[in-house]
């Protein structure tokens, strides 16, 4: 069903976990649908210095979460906003069709985290 790259990210997910006092947090999905992704970011000089995720979901949900964290580390926030669910799926070498819609939401979680950061900083600034 899944290709090797997906399986690698599923079995050896990058950047799992939580950070203390993240600069931004984004969560998408809901447990009723079977996929929930939470992404936390630390931002420095408008760049994503660190990123962590926690995901409840299937193989694709976990692999896309892992992949998105890898893709965006070090990017500027604007660059990170350009990374879409499609970009993530492509970086993984493709996902099974039935997984494209329900489990490929990791980029959305990242975007939420960036928005969360921006909303906080704009209030603060």
């Amino acid at each position, binding site marked *: 069903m899944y290709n090797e790259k997906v399986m690698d990210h*599923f079995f050896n997910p990058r950047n*799992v976990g939580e950070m203390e006092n993240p600069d931004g947090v984004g969560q998408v999905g809901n447990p009723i649908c*079977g996929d929930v992704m939470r992404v936390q970011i630390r931002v420095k000089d408008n760049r994503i210095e660190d990123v962590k995720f926690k*995901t409840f979901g299937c193989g694709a*949900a*976990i692999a896309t979460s892992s992949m998105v964290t890898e893709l965006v580390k070090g990017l500027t926030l604007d660059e990170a906003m350009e990374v879409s669910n499609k970009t993530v799926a492509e970086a993984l070498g493709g996902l099974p069709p039935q997984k494209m819609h*329900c489990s490929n939401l990791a980029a959305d979680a990242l975007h939420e985290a960036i928005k969360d950061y921006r909303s906080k900083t704009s209030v603060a600034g």
Partner: protein
Amino acid sequence: MTSERNSPARKVYLDHSATTPVRAEVLSVMLPFFAQAFGNASSVHRWGREARVGVETAREKVAYLLGAEPSEIVFTSGGTEADNLALRSTARLLRSKGNHIITTTVEHHAVLHTCQILEKEGYEVTYLPVDEYGMVSVESVIEAIRPETILISVMHGQNEVGTIQPVEEIGRVAKEKGILLHTDAVQSAGKVPLKVRDLGVDLMSISSHKMYGPKGIGALYVRKGIKMAPQITGGAHERGRRAGTENVAGIVGFGEACYLAERELAEESRRLTALRDRLISGILERIPDTVLNGHPSKRLPHNVNVSIKYVEGESILLNLDRMGIGASSGSACTSGSLEPSHVLLAMGVPHEVAHGSIRMTLGRMNTVEDIDYVLEVLPPIVSRLREMSPFSAPAASETSGGGRNNVQ
């Protein structure tokens, strides 16, 4: 497929409710029917006669398992077709008598989807609810009966959660009211005694590949005297009840599988029950925040179904698979739909818990060592996934059983 590359320490197949391997004894009786006694069972020549003998001997063996007469057995391409035939034939032939069918919310899709189509064609269907164990009550059946009720279809052993329905009691009600009773016994056949006269059923579906026979063959028991309108039409095969050249090798294998199952039933059922209970209690003891789904005792001897909170089924399955263990899940993700198991939902299991259910169904080759291997491998998999889950604080959930985000 990455995981084909690694060789796990042990291979443990725990998905016998999905399908079973063909037994060596079964395959060996089938083999002559591929290239030697390969005739069309309708032909008059020697090749045809040999095939006919194969088919009719197998029919006797299937009848033996069910305590039926050979003429009451109609071969189909599987359990799904048997269910379809039972429902559609009855619906069509009894239309003048009524248009109401009673079934349950926990039937297999072969029954449920067929009922939904019958609804579109003008039939009315009552889908009886089940309790927290997935059990339907005889009272609810009685209450649902109307003058225009023509069929009650209640499965015997539930395929996901293993609950065994009170078919015998429903049989008494059906007989008293003069309503036909169908039971989908695909999961029960070969696992628990299943004599049609004791159960009082008029129609019963069974499937070969769930009981160590080949795939692509099944049977519908049709009580003597009940007329059938064929679903697949054409030649006069199966006494006009199912057209199409008989799958001789498949039928022969199915017959042998039935015979062997009946012979070994009592002992194998005891053995499986012991393994099942070892696996259930092992999981509940070693992994916090797990619950057994289905009835604790009125349960198929080979079925284990547990919900493991805070994690999702497919991700458990993929990890088990990497460790050589084949299981299945009630998660939506496995099937690619958004809805998890309709059975767990019907039992009142919350969506998020249903997503974390896994089913392990035991079979002939499984041993105590297999069970212990699962009990060794599963807890660390769950821990790792829970660490990844936003719903359980890694430390807390493993000790206190309460996650930060308490699901259910």
